[in-house]
């Protein structure tokens, strides 16, 4: 091993700071550690994140990868004349959300949720934007391709991990990420055969034809 001038923790902090500034891509702690001959970089990352917390530039973790980026509250001062961000069509936005909240998910499952066919270009465009990737095949008849999001997706939308997806816990708890069949069966089992007797919210509303007048 070569002598590396990194005896004091300060030097490692500086080195990690410089490496992340210079890096063209976000870096995992492991990649950084490998870069610095196995040094333990997590304390340095935490120290840097704290140091930059209220500066114009922040150190953030996105999908286990670390990167510097400008502080969000300065957005209006930094926004360029020409927006660099792609404007997503509604179809693309919905497909992206479905992939993110349901991953891994097949095209048929996406279409079941949206009730409409997904044009070939939509998934391609999301993959070209590097937000969605093919995550293998589902081992069911037909072996359909399944899709998932990428670290770039987390990065772009400022998510530390998929658990940070807005409202994902509530959606999960409400069963809104389960397929309709599962949800129906669970509901049917709970309500029993005489659904209309117990005034459950789900079916009670069906009894009011007057509302449509």
């Amino acid at each position, binding site marked *: 091993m070569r002598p590396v001038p990194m005896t004091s923790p300060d030097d490692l902090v500086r080195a990690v700071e410089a490496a992340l*500034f210079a*890096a*063209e891509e976000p870096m995992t702690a492991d990649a950084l550690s490998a*870069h610095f001959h196995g040094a333990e970089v997590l304390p340095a990352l935490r120290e840097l994140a704290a140091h930059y917390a209220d500066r114009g530039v922040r150190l953030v973790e996105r999908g286990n990868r670390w*990167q*510097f*980026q*400008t502080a*969000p509250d300065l*957005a209006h001062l930094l*926004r360029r004349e020409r*927006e*660099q*961000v*792609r*404007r*997503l*069509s*509604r*179809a*693309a*936005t*919905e497909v*992206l*959300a479905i992939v*993110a909240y349901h991953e891994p998910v097949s095209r048929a499952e996406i279409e079941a949720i*949206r*009730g*409409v*066919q997904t*044009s070939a*270009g939509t998934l*391609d*465009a999301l993959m*070209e*934007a590097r937000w969605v990737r093919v995550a293998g095949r589902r081992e069911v008849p037909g072996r359909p391709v399944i899709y998932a999001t990428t670290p770039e997706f987390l990065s*772009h*939308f*400022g998510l530390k991990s998929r658990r940070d*997806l*807005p*409202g994902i816990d509530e*959606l999960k708890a*409400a069963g*809104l990420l389960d397929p*309709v069949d599962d*949800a*129906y069966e669970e*509901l049917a089992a709970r309500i029993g055969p005489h*659904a209309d007797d117990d005034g459950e*919210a*789900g*079916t*009670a*509303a*069906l009894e*009011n*034809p007057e*509302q*449509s007048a």
Partner: protein
Amino acid sequence: MTEVGVLFDPAPAPADDWDGPGAAPGGAEALYLELDGWEGPLDLLLDLARRQKVDLKAISILALVDQYIAYIERADALKLEIAADYLVMAAWLAYLKSALLLPKEEQEDPSPEELALRLQLRLQRLGAMREAAARLLARDRIGRDVFLRGAPEGLRVDRRNAWQCDWYALVSAYAQVKARTEPVVHMVRERPVMTLDSALDRVSAMLGVKLAWMELREFLPAHAEPRLRRSALASSFVAALELARLGKAEIRQEEIFGPLHLRRAAA
């Protein structure tokens, strides 16, 4: 620019203050465009359901069915082209409505309640995803709200070879160089050999005893060590050739590299 057509909105999303096809600015043509702006019947249904301004869980399916059918009928009255799947949905919803209004006893499986509930569950799921998408897009996005380093220096990767060699390899390599390039002093060491003369004597003596063909190997000393055997083979072969040349022996070989046989030449 890398934007692909499908990433753009084909048409603006229907405005929240929508109140019927007739209200669309631009008349009949705009209506058609607006219908086209929905991503299929489920999308339109969700939009209609939202206009009831109640939780999707408490939505009135019957009211929804009526609105949808009314919508399609008005579009039809305006002689607009309506996509087949919108009409299929309209027919299915009309069936669902009639089934919901019929007395329970006459109903088949699946029950209209089940169908209605399933439709409601689908609308809830699509509504949840639409909301999630909106919240996702509202986050601080790179290139819009936050920016990465504009001109990163980049990290260079240098490949370095870690050469490996050990002491024994080093020393033996040197020894071999020395051995290989030692001034060529041929030290003829004492070696067990059979000279040509003794092979001649030996082979001709043995030929004198036997009349039949004998293989060359049979002339070699039986229990000699390998190096002597090799030397004996070489000199016996030359001796055989010499004897043949002198007309004292005959040599026969059936095939190339086959065994070599000798016998005494007929006198």
